[in-house]
């Protein structure tokens, strides 16, 4: 617990000692705004809600989250600090969770900085703030799932570019697994059970359900399970690298 907290603080601070934090936050805010206003027709829709804003979050995360996670383990391996880090009296679980929570907290900060959107809709009309809150929570849960996947994949390599590419690819497949892109590929040959299983892994489906304003247990549990699963995978990969 203590070690997780110490690692969490070091990792979170490390985002802000480099330009990474500022570049990431600015790009995130600019892109979130641009997509909501120009692609999502935020104003022209004439509705006081944040749907056009949240709609693009999965796609935004697809590009930006791998950039955040690619360095988590790959950079330590490349620079050799992993040898220092893993010879400290810390369990691998504590290290994995500490790094993940720091990345998640950083994403939460970036997400929280989108509050002007929330203020704007509240000035322009009277939105359902419950729905907005649910959407924020859903977005954060989804970001957590992306981060856990990215962190685990980052532990596989010492090359950050590889970590980025495979994370983006994995996240893309999971995001669209409910859509015709993936299902169309499976339908001709796969049994219905498998197709339904793959479809149930779709981040979009679960996120869209939350965006409707109700955080239903299955959707929240889905994201939390993905996080837990990939943190476990992350620890297993780090452990495995000690023997291989």
């Amino acid at each position, binding site marked *: 617990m203590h070690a997780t907290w110490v690692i969490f603080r070091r990792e979170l601070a490390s985002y802000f000692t480099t330009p990474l934090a500022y570049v990431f936050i600015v790009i995130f805010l600019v892109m979130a705004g641009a997509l909501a206003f120009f692609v999502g027709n935020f104003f022209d829709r004439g509705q006081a809600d944040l749907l056009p804003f949240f709609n693009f979050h999965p796609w935004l995360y697809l590009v930006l989250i791998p950039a955040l996670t690619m360095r988590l383990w790959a950079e330590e391996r490349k620079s050799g600090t992993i*040898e*220092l880090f893993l010879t400290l*009296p810390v369990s691998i679980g504590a290290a994995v969770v500490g790094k993940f929570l720091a990345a998640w907290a950083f994403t939460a900060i970036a997400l929280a900085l989108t509050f002007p959107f929330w203020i704007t809709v509240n000035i322009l009309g009277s939105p359902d703030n419950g729905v907005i809150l649910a959407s924020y929570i859903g977005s954060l849960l989804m970001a957590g799932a992306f981060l856990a996947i990215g962190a685990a994949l980052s532990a596989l390599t010492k090359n950050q570019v590889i970590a980025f590419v495979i994370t983006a690819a994995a996240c893309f497949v999971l995001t669209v697994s409910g859509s015709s892109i993936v299902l169309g590929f499976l339908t001709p040959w796969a049994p219905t059970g498998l197709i339904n299983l793959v479809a149930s892994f779709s981040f979009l489906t679960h996120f869209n359900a939350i965006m409707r304003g109700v955080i239903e247990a299955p959707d929240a549990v889905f994201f939390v399970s993905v996080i837990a699963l990939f943190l476990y995978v992350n620890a297993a990969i780090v452990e495995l690298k*000690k*023997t291989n």
Partner: protein
Amino acid sequence: MTEMIEVRDLTRRFGSILAVDHISFSVTRGEVLGFLGPNGAGKSTTMKMITGFLAPTDGTAVVCGADIVADSIGAKRRIGYLPEGAPAYPDMSPRSFLRFIAEIRGFAGDEARRRIDLAVARTALVSVMEQPIETLSKGFKRRVGLAQALLHDPDVLILDEPTDGLDPNQKHEVRTLIKALAPEKVIVISTHLLEEVEAVCTRAIIIAAGRLLADATPVELAARSRLHNAVRVNLADGHDEAETALRRLPGVVAVERVVDLEGGALLVLPRGGRPIVGEVTDLVRTAGWAVRGLSVERGRLDEVFRTITA
């Protein structure tokens, strides 16, 4: 319990390569153990296993009673480790880096501050405490790594090439530090600088191709040299005549011509490493040669190293 590190049949395989092949040894308090071997001999791999970074394929090590496989965290608590190249987070300052290490090792508040101050004083880091580590010179980076390893005052110090890349003054400082710490600790250093072994180590282990080939004090190792007890005679002139006469001495196995900075000299090699300086000086005196210099060789570690590892 005086045996603070006990390595038992430690083995590590990378695919088909046997990097460390059933190495066993133990180290007791007060010893400074030098790990010698050519590059790729398995020195670093052995250290990485003892410190818990790599899992052994077979065998284990016990550090202060904690088994590195069964109680990895317990062992890590007792070890201060300087990995090869002294890695540290480049965007942190030595102060924040050492604070992180102190906290993760369970020190807080005044205790953490006191320990950081002590480690910083011992490694002479005061002047660079607020600079990002990536901007520091190689020597300072190495010292940051040493400070990190010393912070919790561990019983066991494992230092992988602690003086690599340091200038002669810095090397001297680090060696002085190691010697000062030695009496109450177990220190294992790896190096390929043989002068370092002679300067700080009480014992040396030579490994090559993953196998332990020698385990002795530096003096004992040097005594295995064919140069051990050899006598170097530098004469004003008449080397030819002297060479023939010296070769006839019963204790002498061979006489070699050597050329060094002072000009030519004769190197008189003893039979079986026995002292021959008495015989040689007697001969010099009776023959009445004009001697410019005469010295006894203790044997050279580098030569022994080459013989063992070649």
